[in-house]
């Protein structure tokens, strides 16, 4: 039975989630040097084209189609065969199935776009397209099926992920780590100045991400109901405390509170609350945001010491955020908030925490290993990096024949 309110809500939420991808382009674009801003924008924007086609043809069927051994959906819904405006009997039963399909499409688009922050300023555009497409097929679609698909094996073991802590943030964070290890640091990294070229652009991107995140998390209730409101509030509160905690950490650490720190803390809080948004109450959400600000700040600082050039901190913010959010859900989840969820450690159910940690290990390892192999193969055949001359002249010129700022 189609509910008009639910349908309107999910379609609006789908629009909000799409907006996050250009928002991410601004967020990342401001943080790179001016010679790479268009190349960085393009890496996010082009995902809207590439992944939408992939999703309609096979991604939706692999993720949500009829189950094959708990591991993947089959391809019987290829090119949206049988997927129409009638509600699905299993997913979001009060809205047209094609509304559910296009809502999920937006998640598949932004996930590979998130990875681009780790490999910023040095990847070849053609290799990036090939990597993202294969990565979505080999990593995103299967993990999406395991966690959210009907019959998925992690879902069957009780692993919960409200809006994508595992499916979106941990998969992209693990892939980012693999990419940083395979590709190596940018030329002259650690010797020259890699300061962001336009922080106001990054702040605008943060604002659009935060706005879109309401669609991402509240929309994941897939109905205009109380759980959507709970998720909406959790999202806002965790973003807010994440931002506060990050700038407190900067100040305590002997520095000054920075705008980039405020933006980073907000995104860390938002990413961390994502798996828990519809399953925890407001005080738990604020606590999760505080933990996110503390842990992600520490992770980003640790990177400097290890010497990995995760250029825009995808691992430290999305990877670590996805991990601690999923684990925090094992601690703070409560059936009094969402009867369809679970009780966590604080509600006396320690085994659910174990289940969540198992989910983190499985998804993290799978995404890392498959990404690493895929990157190695592409590096050995097409080559992942632009040559040194092109890297010095910048991606805008060398990959796109354009310059962002002409006066």
């Amino acid at each position: 039975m189609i509910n008009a309110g639910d349908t309107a809500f999910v379609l609006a939420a789908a629009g909000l989630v799409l907006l996050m991808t250009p928002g991410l382009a601004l967020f990342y674009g401001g943080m790179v040097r001016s010679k790479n801003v268009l190349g960085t924008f393009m890496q996010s924007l082009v995902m809207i084209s590439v992944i939408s086609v992939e999703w309609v043809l096979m991604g939706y069927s692999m993720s949500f189609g009829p189950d094959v051994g708990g591991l993947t959906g089959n391809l019987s819904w290829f090119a949206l065969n049988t997927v129409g405006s009638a509600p699905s009997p299993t997913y979001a039963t009060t809205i047209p199935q094609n509304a559910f399909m296009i809502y999920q499409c937006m998640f598949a688009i932004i996930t590979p776009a998130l990875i681009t922050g780790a490999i910023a300023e040095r990847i070849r555009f053609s290799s990036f397209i090939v990597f993202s497409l294969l990565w979505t097929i080999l990593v995103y679609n299967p993990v999406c099926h395991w966690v959210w698909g009907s019959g998925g094996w992690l879902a069957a073991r009780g692993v919960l992920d409200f809006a994508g802590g595992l499916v979106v943030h941990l998969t992209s964070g693990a892939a980012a780590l693999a990419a940083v290890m395979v590709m190596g640091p940018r030329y002259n990294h650690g010797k020259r100045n890699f300061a962001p070229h336009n922080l106001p652009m990054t702040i605008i991107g943060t604002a659009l991400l935060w706005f879109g995140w309401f669609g991402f998390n509240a929309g994941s209730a897939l109905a205009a109901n109380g759980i959507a409101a709970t998720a909406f509030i959790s999202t806002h509160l965790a973003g807010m405390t994440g931002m506060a905690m990050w700038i407190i950490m900067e100040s305590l650490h002997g520095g000054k509170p920075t705008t980039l720190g405020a933006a980073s803390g907000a995104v860390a809080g938002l990413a961390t609350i994502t798996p828990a948004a519809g399953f925890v109450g407001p005080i738990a959400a604020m606590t999760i945001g505080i933990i996110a600000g503390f842990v992600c700040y520490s992770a980003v600082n640790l990177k400097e010491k290890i010497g990995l050039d995760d250029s825009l901190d995808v691992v430290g913010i999305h990877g670590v955020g996805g991990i601690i959010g999923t684990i925090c859900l094992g601690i703070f989840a409560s059936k009094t908030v969402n009867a369809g969820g679970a009780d966590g450690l604080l509600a006396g159910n320690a085994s659910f925490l174990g289940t969540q940690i198992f989910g983190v290990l499985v998804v993290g390892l799978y995404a890392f290993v498959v990404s690493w192999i895929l990157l190695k193969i592409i590096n050995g055949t097409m080559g992942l990096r632009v040559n040194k001359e092109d890297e010095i002249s910048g991606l805008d010129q060398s990959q796109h024949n354009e310059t962002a700022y002409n006066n």
Partner: protein
Amino acid sequence: MGSFPDKHWREPAVAPFTTQGEKEKKMKKIEAIIKPFKLDDVKEALSAIGIKGMTLSEVKGYGRQKGHKEVYRGAEYQVDFIPKVKLELIVDAAQVDEIVECIRRAALTGKIGDGKIFVMPIEEVVRVRTGEKGSNAI
């Protein structure tokens, strides 16, 4: 072609270059590199003693002040070249001491990084519109 120097040639009475050299001592260029926020103070102080024109550039550089440190997500960058303002004035040699002292006082904060003032000789000045030369063109 006749041989050179031929019998009609004679040395000029006064070599043109020497004439320029005499003028040169009468005009000086003052270059002052100052903190950008002191520009208004310096400009007002110079107007008050009758200076009618100057050229201004935004420049970057460093001296004893060195640069400063910027921190982005925990990554520290040493910014070596910091923004300064460069003023250039061409003046009569007689006024130089007064003007230099005027700039120095107006640009002074007492902290490191206040800048430097250079004085150098000028060979010739030409006003484009009228073709006037020397002190008249200043």
